[in-house]
């Protein structure tokens, strides 16, 4: 079986430590740093090695979508866990691949799964949450509401 893989697409190098822009004068960079830190992507070398170990007869390509219709399986190598920024690529691959081609994912956590419609929906939902920080925003509202209550409770109980 010939396996064709979409090659590693990796725009930012991984960072170690809490290398996050601290100044609110650069909110866009701060936001990007936070999203990148939490996604914890692996390097392209790590992804290539992971792929080669799992699919020794596979063929690694870097974004050459032309050869997709020669493949029995296309494995997307997400450097992070859920393929942030891979939505457009997935749509193009699904359009170009033959109906019988299996489209699957191998992510930076070493997890392998088939990209079914249900999984794709699940990933899109999670990407939305991760990039928009909706959960964090809602948590902030709860934080603002609850903090005075907790502080008052502690004051009454003389826990300072």
């Amino acid at each position, binding site marked *: 079986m010939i396996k064709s893989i979409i090659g590693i697409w990796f725009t930012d190098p991984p960072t170690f430590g809490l290398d996050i822009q601290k100044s609110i004068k650069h909110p866009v960079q701060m*936001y990007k740093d*936070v999203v990148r*830190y939490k996604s914890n992507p692996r390097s392209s070398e790590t992804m290539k090695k992971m792929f080669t170990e799992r699919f020794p007869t596979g063929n690694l390509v870097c974004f050459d979508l032309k050869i997709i219709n020669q493949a029995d399986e296309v494995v997307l190598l997400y450097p992070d866990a859920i393929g942030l920024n891979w939505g457009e690529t997935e749509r193009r691959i699904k359009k170009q691949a033959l109906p019988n081609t299996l489209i699957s994912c191998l992510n930076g956590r070493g997890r392998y799964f088939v990209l079914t419609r249900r999984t794709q929906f699940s990933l899109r939902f999670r990407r939305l949450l991760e990039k928009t920080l909706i959960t964090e925003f809602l948590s902030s509202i709860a934080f603002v509401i609850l903090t005075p209550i907790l*502080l008052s409770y*502690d004051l009454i109980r003389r826990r300072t």
Partner: protein
Amino acid sequence: MTSESPPKSQITEKAAAPATNPVAEWWAENPMTYADDHGLVTYEGVQVPFGSIEFFDRLDRTFLDWNKPLHSDVPFGKIFDYRRYQGKKVLEIGCGMGTMASLWAKSGADVTAVDLNPVAVETTKKRFDSFNLTGTILRVDGKTLPFPDGHFDYVYSWGVLHHSPDLEKSLTEMFRVAKPNADFGVMLYHRKSFLHWYMTEYIEGFLHRENKFLNPLELASRYGDGHREEGNPHTWPITRKEATEMFYEHSQDVRIDTLGTELDGLFKLMLPGVGMRLPHWVKKPWARRFGWSLWISGHKATV
């Protein structure tokens, strides 16, 4: 000071004896250096030689900085009564790079520090030699301590026993070697904490779908210490209720304090731009309920 430091593989080659289990092996290869990541010797981008005076200085500064609320006029003065134990026998289970053991030695305690990790033992010995401190440092499994019953005046363990697959056995041993009515202190990770809920269960478990591949113990281990790489073999944080039940067998006056010294870093991720500017008094009510560490202390039962 040179800018070179040994790669991780050389650090384990220096160990006196091979590690005997996966937990010890992992910590030997990834010692807790309080650096930019596990096992590294880079502090805010500056690389230092492993085991050098500068290494100990940088490590200690980071470790002490992380735990600022616990200090008084001395480091950890709010939880350790150094004066009371001058000349007395103190046992640390899981000494790591020897920061706390050295504080006890400097305060005049007769300190014994043990660790399963051979790199930790060797590094602590080197620290003691470098700073002319005296103490007994041994490579020992906390489940089989080579000390007689009722030997120590004070026993403690900081952030270690939740990495033991048999926590209860380790605790039983710890209490065995403590004198009747001896004080004890154990820090364990807290499962009902913001850090665990947000970083492990929400971000990795739910958002990154790791809960489809890992059970709760595997998830806590994978995304506990060493989470930026591949995690560690075993981490199981406990709850206050579990701590009470576990310790009640050994002590009837157990006190559990929740420590939230990690919240600064967590709020920086949760509320970028705002989180790092929250005043301490705003974070405190959350830290004391949902902090990442439980400090469990009390007296060993007399019977």
